[in-house]
Structures are given as structure tokens and as C-alpha cells.
């Protein structure tokens, strides 16, 4: 670089010294000659750096191309062909690949198994609200600072020590019959002591254990935990069931069966509250008409299915005694009837709303909010519908046969899916979601809490009005990832724990893809299933992004 040492001329508009005699020559870089040399060397250097960068990235890029991008493109092509290992990978008799258009997709839609496996996949996803709540709860717990010195910490430490000492004494006295109780007591004690000594770090590490434990190892462990009758879970649950059995036997059957009525009432109440909340969202201009309708429709799903599950028989006849008793059909009638009334009530209330304001709204506004809310309430209604028959049948179960026994878990067609959901719940609590919430909790501005305190907010109000809204972006991300993971998931646990059984109850779409592709060799059809799954994930994600994101940013 050379310098132009010419002086500034008076009247030079660009000179800062215009109109003044310059005291020093103004240094002006002359880039004309050096710029070329500079840019040449810079470009050379840039090219060199690029070559290095690409060279080092090459293994990764090549791996991505070879094992992800190109197979993806091929799989998309395969989905529209009749690709079959037997016909098209046969070294002795290679046949031309045939384009079949949408045939594979149409066949898939016509397959009852596809709907069953999709239903299984969605069933597993119903655990998501619980998982999110669990990870949030864990994150809130772990965000508390636990340091030694306080009275509470000393209490915890002493409790832990007592538990460990008790366990050791039981072992010393040969009390092997209570192995499970000892194990639980000992572990609890150890955790309490460890947590007290190590502070929050110990608890955070412990809670995060499920995430970095290898999947297959976890599944094998849970398979052992779920061993019927003699497994640890059965051993822990059976005493509880025995106690319940005692209570049920001692109570009049009608009293126990009233639980069914309570469940139905609660179910209707949830629907009432859910629709009410949706209506208020609508009245406040937070949700448009489409959002309300879609959310309300989602909320109606359990009601639409209850007749199929409960039937419509009002009375059941005991073949032995000929006596008649209330049957589950009452539940169907009640839920359908009450829901109809609730709907009418809310529609009438809605009609009285500010129409002028309503008309200005965008119809798709807040769809994500509404659906997320409705999905959560829907799961709660499902839980009520599931619990109802338990209370209804409890007196019969408790007084006949062997009484109340733990189910066969993974071997039971009715319990296989819930068992896997329980396992998933355990994994989800200590997952990345917990870490995300933990990080998000530290970002909540303290001023908001202080303002809430000044306003005299209770703990719950602080959470509901400050913490929860502030966590909305994280919740949105967690939900999106959960939905994607949920739709794609279930392969390992099905393969390791149940082989998709019993009776296909734990076969998810991911496992179905594997079975079709590798057990029967129909790669074209299997690819069609995979791309159908991708389409579902894509649509749901797009929906989440389009509507949920707005809600989060708002």
C-alpha cells in the first residue's frame, strides 16, 4: 500500500479540513496498485482455506451424501415403484423396476394394519402432555438451590441416613423377603444423602441418567422390571392392589362403582371447562373461528369414541343369579348427552359475544394455542374414560378369581401400550426437555416475579401467570420435537421388548417399515410407508410452525 501525500484543497467537500490550511499531509491510501495484489493473495488464501475446510468436511459431507441424502432420494423414487428384493435385487433374475404411481400409498391406506399401527403410534404420543409436565416439574425442582447448612438440608440428610441405616440393619438381620422395600429405601436414602452432600449437581445428574443410558440397555432393564407377578414393578404394586382389594371387599359395591359416575362427571366437567376456555379465547380475540372449531372437534374425539368402547347396554345380567346391574352404556349416554348440552350452552353464550369484534378477526388466528390446549384436555378426558370402567369393574375383580392382581404388562394386549408409555414417561422426565426447561427457567426475568410478589400472587399464580408464559418458546420447541419423535419412534422398544406384539398392539409405524422392508423384502411398499410417515411429520411440523410459532412470539 502506498500513501497519497497530496494536501487538501480548499473547498474540497470531502475534506474534514475544508476551508482550513492543513497542518499535516492527509494520508490517503492508494489501493489501486496494492488492492490487486492484496485481493489476489486474499483470494488465494481464501481458496486455500476453502480447500482445507472442504477437505476436512469431506468425510462428513460424503457420509451424509452416501448414507442420508442419496438414500433419501432413492427411497422417494422407490416409494413409487414395485421394488421388491426378490425381483429387483435377485442376482439371478433381475427384472426391470416398474413405476406404479400411487399404488403403494393406496394399498397402504386400505390396509387395516396401517390404521392399527398409526393408532398405536398416536396412542404412545398421548403420553406427551404427561412427559412435558414431568420434565417441567423435574426442571422446576432442579432449579431450586440446595446447599448445605439450612435446617431443611439437615433434615433431609438425617432422613437419608436413617433410611440407609435401616436398610443395612434389615440386610444384617437377613430380612431378604423385603428385598424390594429395602432396595427402594436404600436407594432413596443414598439419593437423599448424595443430593444433600453434592447439592443440585447430584440431582441434575441423576435425573439426566435416562438420557445417556443406551436405549437397548434401558429397554432390557424395563423388560425385566415388567416381568409379571415376580418382577420388581409387580412386587411393588401388588401390596397396593391387595390393600385396595381389602378396601373394595369391605365396601358396598355401589360405593366403589360410584367412582365410575365420578369419572363420567369429571369427564363432562373437563369438556365443559375446555369448551368454556376455548370460547373465552374466542371472545377475547385470541383464537379465530377456524381455531375454535378445530380445537372443539379435537375435544370431541373421546366423546365420539366412547360409544364404541363402552357400548350402549344399560344393564348387565349376571348369568349365574339373573340379577341386573348398571352397565357401561350409561357412561356413553351420559357423555354424549351432557356434551350435547354443553355444546348448546357454549354456542348460545358465544352468540351473545361482541360480533363486531369477532368479524374483524382472522379465522386461523391462534389455531396452535387452541389445539395444544384441546389436546391436553382430550388426553385428560381419555384418562377419565379409561378410569371409569376400572371403578365399575373393581368389585367384580376384587371378589372373583384370584382378586386384584398386577397385569401381565407387556404380555397383556390391554396393558402392553400403557406399559411402554410408563417407560417412555420415565425416559422423558430426565430427557433433553428437562435440560431445556432448566435453561429456560434461568432466563425468566426476576423483575416479573418481584412484580408478582408485590401484587400478592400465590405460588401457583406466580407459576401460571409468569413462569408458564415465559416458557412458551421452550414448550413450543419441546412439543414440535416431541411430535416428530413420537411419530418416528417406537422401533427399538418394539424390536427389543415386544416384537410388536401382543397381537400387533405395540407395532408402531417405524417398526412396520422395518418389518415390511426387511422381513418381506417389499422395499417399494416399505418406502411408501416411510414417506407417508414423513408427510405426516412434515404436515404436523408445518402446522406447529405456522400456528404455534405465532403464539409463542405473541
Amino acid at each position, binding site marked *: 500500500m502506498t500513501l497519497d501525500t497530496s494536501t487538501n484543497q480548499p473547498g474540497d467537500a470531502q475534506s474534514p479540513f475544508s476551508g482550513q490550511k492543513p497542518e499535516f499531509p492527509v494520508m490517503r491510501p492508494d489501493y489501486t496498485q496494492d488492492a490487486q495484489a492484496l485481493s489476489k493473495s486474499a483470494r488465494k488464501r481464501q481458496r486455500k482455506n476453502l480447500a482445507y475446510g472442504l477437505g476436512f468436511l469431506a468425510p462428513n459431507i460424503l457420509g451424509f451424501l452416501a448414507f442420508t441424502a442419496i438414500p433419501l432420494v432413492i427411497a422417494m423414487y422407490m416409494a413409487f415403484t414395485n421394488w421388491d428384493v426378490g425381483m429387483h435385487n435377485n442376482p439371478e433374475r433381475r427384472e426391470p423396476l416398474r413405476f406404479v404411481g400411487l399404488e403403494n400409498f393406496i394399498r397402504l391406506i386400505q390396509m387395516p394394519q396401517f390404521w392399527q399401527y398409526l393408532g398405536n403410534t398416536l396412542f404412545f404420543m398421548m403420553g406427551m402432555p404427561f412427559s412435558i409436565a414431568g420434565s417441567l416439574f423435574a426442571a422446576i425442582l432442579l432449579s431450586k438451590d440446595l446447599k448445605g447448612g439450612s435446617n431443611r438440608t439437615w433434615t433431609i440428610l438425617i432422613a437419608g441416613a436413617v433410611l440407609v441405616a435401616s436398610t443395612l440393619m434389615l440386610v444384617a438381620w437377613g430380612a431378604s423377603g423385603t428385598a424390594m422395600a429395602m432396595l427402594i429405601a436404600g436407594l432413596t436414602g443414598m439419593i437423599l444423602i448424595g443430593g444433600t452432600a453434592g447439592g443440585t449437581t447430584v440431582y441434575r445428574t441423576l435425573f439426566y441418567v435416562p438420557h445417556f443410558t443406551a436405549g437397548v440397555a434401558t429397554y432390557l432393564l424395563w423388560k425385566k422390571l415388567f416381568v409379571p407377578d415376580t418382577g420388581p414393578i409387580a412386587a411393588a404394586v401388588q401390596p397396593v392392589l391387595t390393600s385396595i382389594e381389602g378396601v373394595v371387599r369391605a365396601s358396598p359395591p355401589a360405593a366403589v362403582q360410584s367412582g365410575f359416575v365420578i369419572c363420567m362427571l369429571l369427564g363432562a366437567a373437563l369438556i365443559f371447562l375446555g369448551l368454556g376456555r376455548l370460547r373465552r379465547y374466542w371472545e377475547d380475540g385470541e383464537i379465530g373461528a377456524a381455531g375454535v372449531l378445530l380445537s372443539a372437534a379435537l375435544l370431541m374425539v373421546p366423546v365420539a369414541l366412547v360409544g364404541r368402547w363402552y357400548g350402549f347396554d344399560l344393564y348387565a345380567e349376571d348369568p349365574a343369579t339373573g340379577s341386573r346391574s348398571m352397565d357401561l352404556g350409561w357412561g356413553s349416554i351420559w357423555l354424549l348427552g351432557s356434551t350435547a348440552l354443553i355444546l348448546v350452552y357454549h354456542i348460545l353464550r358465544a352468540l351473545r359475544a361482541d360480533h363486531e369484534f369477532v368479524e374483524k378477526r382472522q379465522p386461523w388466528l391462534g389455531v396452535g394455542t387452541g389445539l395444544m390446549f384441546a389436546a391436553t384436555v382430550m388426553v385428560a378426558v381419555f384418562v377419565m374414560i379409561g378410569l371409569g370402567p376400572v371403578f365399575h369393574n373393581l368389585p367384580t375383580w376384587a371378589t372373583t378369581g384370584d382378586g386384584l392382581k398386577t397385569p401381565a404388562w407387556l404380555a397383556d394386549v390391554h396393558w402392553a401400550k400403557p406399559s411402554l408409555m410408563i417407560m417412555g414417561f420415565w425416559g422423558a422426565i430426565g430427557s433433553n426437555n428437562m435440560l431445556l426447561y432448566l435453561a429456560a427457567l434461568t432466563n425468566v426475568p426476576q423483575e416479573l416475579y418481584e412484580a408478582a410478589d408485590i401484587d400478592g400472587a400465590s405460588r401457583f399464580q406466580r407459576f401460571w401467570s409468569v413462569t408458564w408464559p415465559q416458557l412458551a418458546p421452550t414448550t413450543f420447541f419441546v412439543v414440535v420435537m416431541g411430535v416428530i419423535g413420537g411419530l418416528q419412534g417406537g422401533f427399538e422398544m418394539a424390536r427389543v421388548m415386544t416384537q410388536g406384539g401382543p397381537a400387533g398392539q405395540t407395532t408402531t409405524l417405524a417398526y412396520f417399515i422395518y418389518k415390511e422392508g*426387511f422381513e418381506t423384502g417389499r422395499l417399494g411398499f416399505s418406502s411408501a410407508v416411510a414417506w407417508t410417515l414423513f408427510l405426516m411429520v412434515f404436515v404436523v411440523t408445518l402446522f406447529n410452525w405456522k400456528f404455534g410459532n405465532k403464539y409463542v412470539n405473541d
Partner: protein
Amino acid sequence: MKYIFLAIAIVLTIAAFMTARMAPDLASEVPVIYWVTDTNPARQEQVRLFHQWMVDQGHYVEHVLQNEQEADAFFHRNRSTSIRRIIREVNPDAAALCDWADDRSVQVTFPQVVRLPQVELKLDMANADGTKKIIQGVSRVGGDIMDQYSGHDLRYFRAVGLNTDVTEAAHRLKFDLSTTYPAIEPELALRDANGELRQYQYPCNVNASMFFVNRATFRQHGQPLPPERMTIEEFERRGYEFVHAANAGRAKQTVFFLNNLEFEVLRRSYGGSRFNETGTAAILDEATVQAMRTQHKWMYEGRYRLMPNQADRSSFATESGYGGADAQLFSHDDPERGQYGLFWTGRYLLITFRQMNEARAARGLPPLDLGVIAPPYEKFLNTSIATRAAMVYSQSPHRDLATYFLAFLASKEYNEQIVKDGDALPPNPIYTETEAYRHPPEYPMEWDVHEPFARAAVDISIGGSYSHFILPSVAERIESTWRDRYHAGMETLEGAVARAQAEINEEIQRALAEDDRRDEPILRPLYNQLVERQRQIDALKERIQEHLAAGRPIPEEDKIPEAWIQNAFHIAYYRHLGWLKEVARSPSTQPITAVTAN
């Protein structure tokens, strides 16, 4: 940073070259072939025997090493640990030379004659999973020899073209179908477009399933020993007496009469099969309904049940070792921990029982007192026969050499080793007629066991029932799913059977529709041919029924020619009923062109 990455890349490249140089193929002058098989300690000995057999049969490379320089070059060419071991094993006279290869101070005189088998066999136990074999096979990197489990694998691998037709080699090297059990034919061979039987594999071992009886368990519960053959009625009567006596006073049933019974054996005993005579359709008739009902009764009904269901099985948390939980439960003496009186399995379980007997002896317990009985029957006594067979990978560069291994499986040396190990039945039934098989001197407690298995393989065993138009695994998956749904109370018995039949037949029609789109359909002409044949068979069956209804003997011309029937069960069953016209199955009389469904 870039220099660090560069250094890592250089180190990895050097390591890759070194690894490649140490690869068995480059460290041995004879080709190396891989046997994809299960993890079993006996395989090492079988590999050793194979190398020795190759040399004994004259399939070797001979070197006359005149001096140290030649010996040095020879051992440099053969530097892998495994080939050195083989040299030592097959050249007992050259032990000093082998020592010299490791330690040059050892004195050795030249010339030395050294023989090497024409091929080095290595075990690959990491890729025995069926999916792995298929993926590697179609990717042209499959093992040279692969273990196959019965006709299921045979048909799938044939559909994908991964197994080699060894028919001619089998005749030349004497491992053709005449050297093994007739009943195992559907598991080893298929018919080609000319109707000729083509062989694709040869058994490593053969298994005819029977019930082991733990006599001590019966005595423990005060029950009489079961006879060798029983009708289902008698079986149930004895079974319920057994479980009532064994479980009396217990809150939970822990003792079962039997661990399991193959559904197909039960169905056949009622006179039914999954497919019709020609395999053109699934016929899940009354026999299937009865078999499912019986299975349900045994597993789910009553205070005490004969057979454990899936939940019972899961609750036995003793699944470990060869044979799994069933072997443990069958063999121990404590009813509280669970017990079986009868154990449905094959002779190969003797490997486990021998280990258990050693453990029992160490604890001062007597050896297991074992007997063997046949499965119960209603109309037709039968059992299943299966095999772990070896096939030669069609894309192997060493197919000819790998074929020697199949010949080795038919050899005296291999068969005697199977007899000695108790690893199911030897491939050649001749070796079950020896004293070494029937009365092994080291195991006198087993003398009642060996012969019933051998007799069952010859007298009452039936191979699998297959259709050309649906993969066995697909048909089995459909049926078992509907069986599960019935057992779980999600479907009625009749409904489950009807749905299973409909779905299997839909799959058959789907395969045919796919085939119709080929320029030259393969399955459709065969299907049409077989459907026509089925009509003829059905017409003959009607006439047979008329004869029977009228109390007349069946005339020879109204009997069903054996060559018309594809389904192994129907051949055996109609022979049993006297409905079969025994005609030699030859290519000229065999109109069936056999291929497998895709």
C-alpha cells in the same frame, strides 16, 4: 488444527493398510471362506474336522520344502494365526517345522512335506441374523456358507436368488437328498421349471420335536409316567391330574404339564393344514378351529392350566442359557420356582442337560431321569421336523470350494461328531443306528432318549407346508396375529380364523396380480396349473367321501396320486387314511414348476 487433522488422517490411512495386510485372505495362500453360523462352541471343532477332512479327501495343496529359505517363504505366505494353526493340525508329522516357524532355534531337517487344505474355513458368528444375511447377500458381501433354518429361509433366500443350486455337486460329492431323512425334503429342495427337484442346502443337523419327560417330576407329584403315545383326550386327562396334584395348596400355579406344543403339530393332529394340497389357497377349516380352541383351553381356561401362556412365561424370570427358561424350569426340583413335566424340544437340548447334570453332580444330586414321548393326537399322529442347514452363497467367489463343506456335512466324521455332541440328529440317519448314537457309554442315563428321536424323524415327522405364492414368514405373521387376537379376547374364534384365511389368500392374490404385470409371468401359469390340479383333487376327494359313506373300499383309480400333491402334510395324511395312490415322483410325472413368491 489442520496439521492435527492431517496427522490423524495419515495415521488412519497407515492403520487401514496394515489392517488390510493382516486380512486373512492376504495372510494365507489358500482362499478363505466364511461360514455364517450361530454361536456354539462346537463349531470350532467342526471347522477343525473340516480342514482335516479336506486333506483326507485329497483336497489339499502340497508343498515340499527343501530348505530353510523355502520354509521361510512358505510361512511368510501363510502368516495368519489361523492358517498356522491349521498347518499344525493337519500335518502332525510336521510339528517340528511348525515350532521352527515360531522359534528358529528349533532343529528341523529338510526336506519337509506340508499339506494345506484347499480352503481355509473361518467362522462368522456376528452376522447370523436373518436380516443381516439378506442385506449382505443382496449387497454381494454375504458369507460364503450361511446357516438356514428350515424351508422358511430356503424359500426367502431362493426368492432373492442368494442360494446356489447344488444338485449336481450333491450327486457327485454324495450329499444328495437320498443321504438324509425323506421328511426333510421340503426344507432342503425346491422343484425347478421342469419339475425336477433341485437341492439348495444340506442339513448341519436335523430336529424332530418330541416331549422330554422329567420322570423325577412325575414321581415327585405322585403321578404315573405318561405313555409314549396318547390321544388328546388321554393327554388332557393325565395333564389335568398332574397340574392339580402339583399345584394343590398354592396360591399361584407354578407347575405346568407341558411348556409348549407347536400349533402346526396340533392342527395336523386334527387333520388340517394351513394350505390346501396344491398350496394355491389357505384353507383354515375345522381342524384349525379345533386346534386353536384346544390351545386356548390349555393356556387360558380353568383354575389350573396345562400350558403356560405368554404372561406365565414372562413371569418366569429365569431366562438364561441355551434352551432358555424352559430348560431351567423343566430340570429343577423345586415346584415353587416353576416346573414343567413335559418339555417340547429336540435332541439338541441334551447339550444343556449334560451341563446341568455336571452341575447337579457337583451338588450331589442325581442326573436328570429323562424319557421321551410323542405329541398327543386326535386323528393323526405327527410331529415336526426341522433343520439347521447350510447353503452356499450364490455370489461367493469360492462356490466350488464352499460346496465341499456341504459334502463334509454328509461325512462320517461330521455325523459322528453330531452324534457325540448330542446336537440334534445327525444329517444322515444311518448314524442313528449305531451303538454310539443309541447307547453312548459316557451317558448311560440318556439311553432311553436317543432312539425315540431317531424313530420320530423317520416314522411320524412331516416337513413344512408351503405355498409357492406367499412367503412363509408372511403367512405365519398373519396367522399368529389373529391367534393372538383370539386368545386376548379381541376376536371370536371363528372370526379370527376367517380373517386369517382371508388375509393370507389376499396376499396370494396380490402376489399373482404383481406377477401378471411381468412381461412373462412366472407365478400365474403355475397357479393356473395348480388350481386345475386342485379341482381334480377335490373331485377325487368327493368320490372318496361317497365311497366311505357307502362303506365301500376306495378303488385305486379314485385315490389321489401322490405326485399331484405339493403339501407334505397331505401326502402323509392321505397315506395314513389310505387315500393316496403311491406313484413315484419323477420329473416326467411331475407337472409342477416350482418357484417362490416374491
